[in-house]
């Protein structure tokens, strides 16, 4: 008999960042920050998490913004909903892999309340914004009563539903640098069915071409290791090299065999996940080879 009953908790609705910082500092041992709640509430119902305090971040006006600065990048406020991000024309044009990652998540109703911050801080291995943000080398601004620091996204994930953030820290901004012109970006979610599904093997690719040469390649994977991660060895095989189909295949094979460790579960076998990594890395980089998926359209 599965529970659908939440445990009892005190509910807090701070309206400023300072209020929120004080609250999470006070209740850091048995409290939970909640953005949209679409992960937290079902998990509370099945007693996966049982906080005594919930601090809702939905009511802080300064947390809601989305700012694109041409030539610099995108600043995402922590309470900005997925809907506002995915339907923003600058996001669609400049960050197509982030758009695809967000768009394939759950459904419209969940997007209307969920956030990117929530997605990455909840840190499930299959988080769909993780791989695109890893390839885009996003940087988080993090605050606590003790001060402020920056956390590159590559240093965020620590384990299944664990991050390197301290218990009293709040993400106050996600900065996504603008990719150079000519960067080719893609995200492959590889779900079992076309909607309402988790990634079986999420793969994001990012390649900057200089004529025939791949000046820089970035590959990130989710759902195939304990944390979302890059594939630095496969990337090194490509950086600075003339891009060919053969080289792409080699890199794809390498990433799938040596840079991920997928498990077998009710959704898919580990072997199938590896194969999907290979196919998606290949497909994403082939876009660059074929000059498709440019991030700027006339």
């Amino acid at each position, binding site marked *: 008999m599965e529970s659908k009953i*939440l445990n*009892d908790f005190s509910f807090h609705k701070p309206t400023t960042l300072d209020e929120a910082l004080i609250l999470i500092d006070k209740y850091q041992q048995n409290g939970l920050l909640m953005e949209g709640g679409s992960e937290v509430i079902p998990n509370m119902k099945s007693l996966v998490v049982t906080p005594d305090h919930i601090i809702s971040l939905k009511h802080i006006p300064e947390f809601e913004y989305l700012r694109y600065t041409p030539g610099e990048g995108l600043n995402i406020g922590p309470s900005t909903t997925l*809907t506002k991000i995915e*339907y923003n*024309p600058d996001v669609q044009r400049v960050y197509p892999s982030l758009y695809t990652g967000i768009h394939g998540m759950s459904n419209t109703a969940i997007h209307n309340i969920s956030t990117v911050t929530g997605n990455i801080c909840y840190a499930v291995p299959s988080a769909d914004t993780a791989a695109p943000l890893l390839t885009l080398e996003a940087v988080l601004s993090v605050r606590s009563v003790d001060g402020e620091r920056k956390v590159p996204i590559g240093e965020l994930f620590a384990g299944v539903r664990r991050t390197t953030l301290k218990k009293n820290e709040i993400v106050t901004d996600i900065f996504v640098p603008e990719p150079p012109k000519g960067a080719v970006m893609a*995200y492959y979610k590889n779900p079992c069915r076309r909607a*309402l599904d988790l990634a079986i093997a999420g793969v994001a690719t990012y390649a900057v071409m200089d004529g025939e040469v791949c000046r820089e390649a970035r590959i990130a994977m989710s759902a195939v290791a304990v944390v979302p991660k890059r594939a630095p060895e496969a990337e090194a095989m490509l950086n600075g090299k003339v891009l060919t189909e053969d080289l792409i295949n080699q890199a794809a094979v390498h990433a799938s065999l040596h840079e991920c460790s997928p498990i077998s579960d009710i959704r898919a076998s580990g072997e199938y996940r590896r194969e999907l990594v290979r196919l998606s890395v290949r497909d*994403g980089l082939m876009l660059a080879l074929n000059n498709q998926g440019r991030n700027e359209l006339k």
Partner: protein
Amino acid sequence: MIQLVTLHVNGDDYPLALDTRTTLVDALRDHLGFRGVKKSCDEGECGACTVLLDGNAVASCTYLAVEAEGHDIVTIEGLAKDGVLHPVQRAFIDCFAVQCGFCTPGMIMATVALLHHNPDPTEEEIRDVLRGNICRCTGYTKIIDAIMQAKEVMKKQSAGEGAEASAPAAGNDTGYKAQNIAQCGSSES
């Protein structure tokens, strides 16, 4: 923990004393009697509990009632005005988009939200935006027909009303349309 909260539902204010654990769907159904809002999976995976929050579709089973204070909530019961059905309700009738009816209130509310943000969706866009609403009876075919009819009626109504056409909700710049997306690995239907 009990908290006092006022919910604004279908145009009226309802002051309530609620356990903080109460989800919006339970507040609406059991505390306020809006049983048109349905509960099916109770974890945000099926859309049956969809209501409008400030014009946006929200899964009321994964939303705490205490969070909903200060927002404009609309349920299926609040859609018809002065006994006149909303064009979406009318279209669902005319196009046989209803069978058992359990998904219907959520489906209709999600449709109203869609057409508010994107008054002229294609079939692909409808299927995409409404993907979170599951139906086991209809196979979705006649629901698409109904939404196509509803959008035409509403476009005519807006045209008739002149420049008073409703603006998309703040922040949805592209009106639920995906423009200029580079090919990114989504499989076609």
